[in-house]
């Protein structure tokens, strides 16, 4: 199987960091998203598409043509289902339907990107190019290489796919965000569990290669004008924090795999948890 992003996501025999995030919510959610044979197809989220294309514009520009098709700026508006099913569609609607039928036929399995989103991705990449550290960081290395590994303590099969494996021995992940300032990105890191990613990826790289990455770096770009760029690394204590979190998730995962039971939330009546710091303010 070739090492493409789609193949990487399609392999559910190994758990990824996204899978760990879902496990962290509940095993039932994990089962529903990855294992349920009757799971509904997942629509691609806009943020995910923008993230992917930004990655590819920056790191794998040679893949752009085969992966994406851009909706031209002069494309007619997509006809709504109401317009399509109308008894007597207007000539404009008919033209639009035809235009979109032709367009869809040519996309094959490529991801459709709105011109405005592509433009945004290109501008984010420009900003990254202009960032002082970029050339040093992206000087030599490999983009999006799947790493398969077994976590020895739980014996679970895992996978990860760093955006960039530098020949200088560090891993780098590109993040798009609304606010790349240190505090705001720190909060994003906690809610999206980037510390878990830093740890899981670094460990995975170590288990697969025998070398521990020299650092895990986040190259962060804001999604809105002026597309400010910042760069952060995960300190050792942050990696340790992430390690504790992902090991808890992996242990639950190993247990669920063994028992075949994927519990959801508690079936008891639980106390409502208001964030603790609010109580300290009283």
């Amino acid at each position: 199987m070739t090492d493409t992003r789609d193949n990487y996501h399609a392999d559910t025999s190994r758990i990824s960091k996204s899978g760990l995030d879902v496990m962290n919510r509940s095993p039932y959610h994990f089962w529903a998203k990855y294992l349920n044979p009757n799971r509904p197809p997942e629509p691609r989220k806009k943020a995910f598409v923008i993230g992917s294309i930004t990655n590819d514009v920056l790191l794998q520009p040679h893949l752009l043509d085969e992966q994406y098709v851009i909706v031209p700026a002069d494309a007619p508006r997509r006809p709504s289902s109401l317009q399509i099913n109308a008894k007597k569609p207007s000539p404009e609607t008919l033209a639009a339907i035809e235009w979109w039928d032709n367009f869809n036929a040519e996309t094959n399995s490529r991801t459709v990107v709105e011109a405005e989103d592509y433009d945004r991705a290109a501008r984010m990449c420009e900003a990254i190019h202009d960032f002082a550290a970029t050339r040093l960081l992206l000087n030599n290395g490999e983009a999006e290489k799947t790493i398969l590994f077994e976590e020895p303590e739980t014996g679970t099969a895992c996978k990860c796919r760093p955006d960039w494996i530098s020949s200088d021995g560090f891993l780098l992940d590109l993040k798009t965000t609304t606010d790349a300032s240190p505090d705001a990105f720190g909060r994003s890191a906690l809610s999206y569990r980037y510390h878990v990613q830093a740890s899981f990826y670094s460990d995975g790289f170590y288990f697969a290669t025998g070398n521990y990455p020299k650092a895990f770096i986040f190259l962060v770009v804001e999604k809105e004008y002026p597309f400010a760029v910042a760069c952060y690394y995960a300190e050792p204590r942050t990696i340790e924090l992430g390690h504790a979190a992902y090991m808890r998730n992996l242990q639950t995962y190993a247990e669920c795999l063994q028992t075949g039971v994927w519990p959801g939330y508690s079936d008891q009546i639980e106390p409502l948890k208001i964030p603790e710091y609010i109580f300290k303010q009283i």
Partner: protein
Amino acid sequence: MSKELVKISAAPSVYSTGDAFDQAQRVAKMLSTTSMVPKDYQGNVANCLVALEMANRVGTSPLMVMQNLHIIHGRPSWSATYLIAAVNTSGKFSPLRFQVTGEGDARQCVAVAKDLATGELLEGPPVSIAMAKKEGWFSKTGSKWQTMPDLMLRYRAAAFFSRLYAPEVAMGLHTVEEAYDAEYTEISSRPKPAAPDFVSNLNAQISGNFADKLPDAEPEHQDAEPAEPATEPATEPDLI
């Protein structure tokens, strides 16, 4: 190594009184300055002090302890040969012997010795390659279990024997080999990331030498300037 090796020493602990501690500290300080002691003890007064106390407890010379007590992953650990010698010279047992049977994963070793007081043949717990694999000792990167399995079987069997029948010899410490293996399964299976130093180095390159390192980079201070629209044509065609 004397037959009194494991007898409880009459000498007081280096921690017993303030005077004893001061005295031991002076000795430790002196020992730490000699190049005759192994690396873990050179320039490390605290390690030397611990070695002095261990020597005191097992009734042997500090140098003997230092030669055979290694700090592996932060844990003091005996060399396996020391442990075997200590059992052999304890005066309680006949010299340790090893019964090795089986092949492949079933290959196993049992350490045996006679209890000199009763004449009873004592058998330590068996150690097998299958056990080494299950415990994760075998698969560790650079594991001696892969390169010299027979020796590792004997060392581990001796460690098990001594822990069971002569715990006073090892004083609760593991062997060097056990400490290495334990690092894989118990303490942490991952090395500590060295991020800060590495990142400082990258930052130095970004702020200082970075411009010099790139042949096509603009002269100094370019990184401090805001992005100019003039850079667009150079990069745009590559991106699309």
